[in-house]
């Protein structure tokens, strides 16, 4: 009964979203305020019914209703309740339902939070969101309904959730990632609405900015969580594999980053407008492409669950309609867009243009490396794969260039800047950064490569530039320092924090790539092994039975410079329902290094294959991601956006009166 209610609610949501995608759009075209005013209640309705359907599916999982085929395939009575809940998005059908729910949630948020928007813009934005929702609801209902029944022969026990996904990381990673992916639909909807109404101005950029920042922050968090999860759950201590599915989330992130910066220029200076619109279209298109790549099963990847050509075809059509339709509209309207001001060659505008070009270049190379194997396969020219060296060869140097310009751009003035004065301003910080970077690496044991130096020096470069910029701004006024610090806008702090995140991330990448130590060993009880300053003593493994698995737990004693330091217990689990083997690693996390022990397979006479790793600064990768996330949210919540819109509101009212 409850699952049928879920389907029924989805059908209702579909009906409402069809209305949402037509009535307000037509109303905005004709200037009919009554028709436009349907947008808000319809958005609420779509969200309400999608939420009911989501709750119904969650209920089916919690109640172990194995007559529902999706539940039977992804759950089990032995599964703890919280994993039964996260199992809702553990497979294809449920994760798409979560996608739609997130989309409905964003639509609702726009409907409730944008009371200050002009009515026709709001109607169009919500209408575009409605069109996207309709597409995805059709997709769920026709190709991947999670509510299909296995009647009358329903199984007594479920097939269990994929053990890789039985983890805290999975509970949080997909929802955060989807919030980001789907969040770009808001920026997309604003861009389309602006194109339709022909009002591409600073106000449009200002409305769009906070939404884009929030979506970007969620996507950053989602990718960070995914990397962290892969690090400890996939078992081999890697944190980025250039896996096609990781690339699928990185591409919208790169274009989204470019969009966040380009929107800033459009709002402040009224230039780059058509470029910004194009970025908004591509950010969302790449999110759809990511969904297509993951869901169609065309990829060999850790994320490729099961493939179904019909589903892939459906998403491909959605993708083509979105890209084709929006680019067609863009071609029709973009020529009307005029820049509102000019700028000289040395200016912040140019610096942000460089940022945009570099980010787009990285995105393009990642796209090429990801799609090239598919293209070659489709042409029947053989099966190939593109290895990580390709991606590193391009993204590392371009990323370094990006950081170099980041340091310059943040202190360059809008509009026009004296080039020689700027160079003078930069020389001292650059020398300081080189000295600090080289010194800190020289004091460390171990071999550093050129790129280690580049990464660490550029990180110091960003740090020094941030400090000098903040102190410049504080000293410009004669009032007390603390008061001046308080006066700096919140979005400024957001920017500095996100940029600091880039520096922290760079340190993490440079250090862990250069100084990672790894030993794959055969260890019999009593064997010892030295890794860095740490000595590992293997004491043997014992058997253990968990709720839905049986496992072998090894014990390793760790000594730091001869002193007892820790006991680590990596595990090898056999999940009984599916007969799947899983590695549970033992970690000793630290700000400056992780110790990482993974258990391989059992060998004869109580010996095991064991992987020992010493990973310096690996936490900085995710710390950087968190700083960027937090920076994005700080910038999005700047009170300026609310004040500004209130001011416009009152201006409008006086004009009307």
């Amino acid at each position, binding site marked *: 009964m409850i699952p049928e209610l879920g389907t029924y609610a989805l059908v209702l949501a579909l009906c409402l979203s069809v209305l949402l995608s037509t009535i307000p759009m037509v109303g905005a075209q004709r200037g009919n305020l009554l028709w436009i005013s349907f947008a808000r209640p319809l958005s609420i309705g779509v969200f309400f019914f999608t939420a009911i359907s989501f709750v119904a599916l969650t209920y089916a999982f919690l109640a172990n209703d194995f007559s529902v085929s999706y539940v039977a395939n992804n759950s089990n009575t032995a599964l703890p309740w919280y994993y039964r809940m996260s199992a809702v998005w553990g497979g294809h059908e449920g994760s798409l339902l979560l996608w739609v729910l997130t989309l409905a949630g964003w639509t609702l948020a726009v409907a409730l939070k944008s009371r200050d928007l002009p009515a026709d813009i709001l109607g169009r934005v919500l209408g575009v969101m409605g069109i996207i929702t309709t597409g995805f609801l059709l997709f769920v209902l026709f190709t991947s309904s999670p509510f299909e029944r296995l009647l009358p022969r329903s199984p007594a026990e479920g097939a269990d959730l994929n053990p890789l996904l039985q983890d805290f990381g999975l509970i949080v990673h997909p929802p955060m990632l989807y919030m980001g992916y789907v969040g770009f639909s808001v920026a997309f909807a604003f861009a389309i609405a602006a194109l339709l109404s022909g009002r591409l101005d600073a106000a449009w950029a200002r409305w769009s900015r906070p939404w884009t920042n929030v979506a970007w922050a969620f996507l950053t968090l989602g990718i960070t969580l995914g990397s962290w999860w892969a690090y400890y759950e996939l078992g081999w201590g890697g944190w980025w594999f250039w896996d096609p599915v990781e690339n699928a989330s990185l591409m919208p992130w790169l274009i989204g980053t470019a969009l966040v910066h380009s929107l800033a220029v459009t709002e402040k200076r009224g230039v780059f407008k058509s470029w910004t619109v194009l970025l908004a279209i591509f950010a969302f298109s790449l999110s759809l492409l990511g969904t297509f790549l993951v869901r169609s099963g065309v990829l060999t990847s*850790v994320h490729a669950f099961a493939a179904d050509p019909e589903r892939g075809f459906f998403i491909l059509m959605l993708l083509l309609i979105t890209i084709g339709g929006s680019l067609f509209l863009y071609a029709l309207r973009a020529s009307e867009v005029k820049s509102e001001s000019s700028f000289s060659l040395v200016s912040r505008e140019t610096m942000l243009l460089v940022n945009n070009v570099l980010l787009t270049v990285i995105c393009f190379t990642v796209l090429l490396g990801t799609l*090239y194997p598919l293209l070659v396969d489709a042409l029947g020219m053989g099966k190939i794969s593109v290895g990580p*060296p390709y991606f590193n060869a391009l993204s590392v140097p371009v990323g370094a260039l990006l950081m170099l310009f980041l340091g310059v751009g943040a202190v360059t003035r809008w509009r026009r800047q004296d080039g020689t004065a700027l160079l003078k301003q930069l020389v001292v910080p650059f020398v300081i950064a080189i000295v600090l970077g080289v010194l800190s690496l020289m004091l460390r044991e171990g071999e550093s490569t050129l790129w280690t130096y580049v990464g660490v020096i550029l990180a110091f470069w960003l740090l020094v530039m941030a400090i000098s910029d903040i102190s410049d701004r504080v000293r410009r006024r004669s009032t007390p320092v603390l008061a001046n610090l308080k006066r700096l806008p919140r979005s400024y702090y957001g920017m500095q924090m996100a940029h600091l995140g880039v520096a922290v991330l760079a340190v993490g990448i440079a250090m862990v790539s250069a100084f990672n130590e790894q030993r794959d060993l055969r260890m019999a009880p009593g064997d010892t092994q030295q890794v860095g300053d740490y000595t590992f003593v293997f004491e043997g493994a014992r058997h253990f039975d968990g709720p839905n698995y049986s496992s072998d737990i090894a014990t390793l004693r760790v000594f730091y410079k001869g002193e007892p330091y820790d006991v680590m217990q990596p595990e090898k689990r056999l999940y009984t329902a599916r*007969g799947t083997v899983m590695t549970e690693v033992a970690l000793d996390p630290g700000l400056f290094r992780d110790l990482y022990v993974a258990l391989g397979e059992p060998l004869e006479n109580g010996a095991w294959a064991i992987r020992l790793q010493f990973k310096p600064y690996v936490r900085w990768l995710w710390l950087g991601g968190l700083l960027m996330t937090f920076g994005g949210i700080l910038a999005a919540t700047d009170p300026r956006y609310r004040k500004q819109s209130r001011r416009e509101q009152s201006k409008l009212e006086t004009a009307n009166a």
Partner: protein
Amino acid sequence: MNPKRKKRLLIVLFILSGAGVAVGLTLYALSQNINLFFSPTQIAQGEAPVGTRIRAGGMVVEGSVNRDNKSLRVEFEVTDFQNSIPIVYSGILPDLFREGQGIVAQGELDASGKLQAVEVLAKHDENYMPPEVAEALEKAGKMPKPSGQEFNK
């Protein structure tokens, strides 16, 4: 040329040259990092190059896994049920590595026709078969049935 046009020209030139360099580098890096996939039959027929990084895959032959008892060196055979080839690997095998399971290995063929693997991949879903392996098996007409229908459903 007025200054405004000159500035625009500079910016466009900058973008174009940047894009040109990027495309050049990209294509070069791509050509250096492509790994072709070969099925056991193709390798047995000598189609695969020796000493170049390639990918090979198939089903692990039952009873072929042979471990060295002092190190992590392991030898096994993969097959598409027409031909099989030996693979040598030193390291920890993935969790889903089992006899009878489809795997993909990455490495170089040595002069004796063994694949010296640097990486062995087996995917996390037991119903999932790497597409390359599935296609190689289908070509050989040896897709396992009826469980074959379970693959990639």
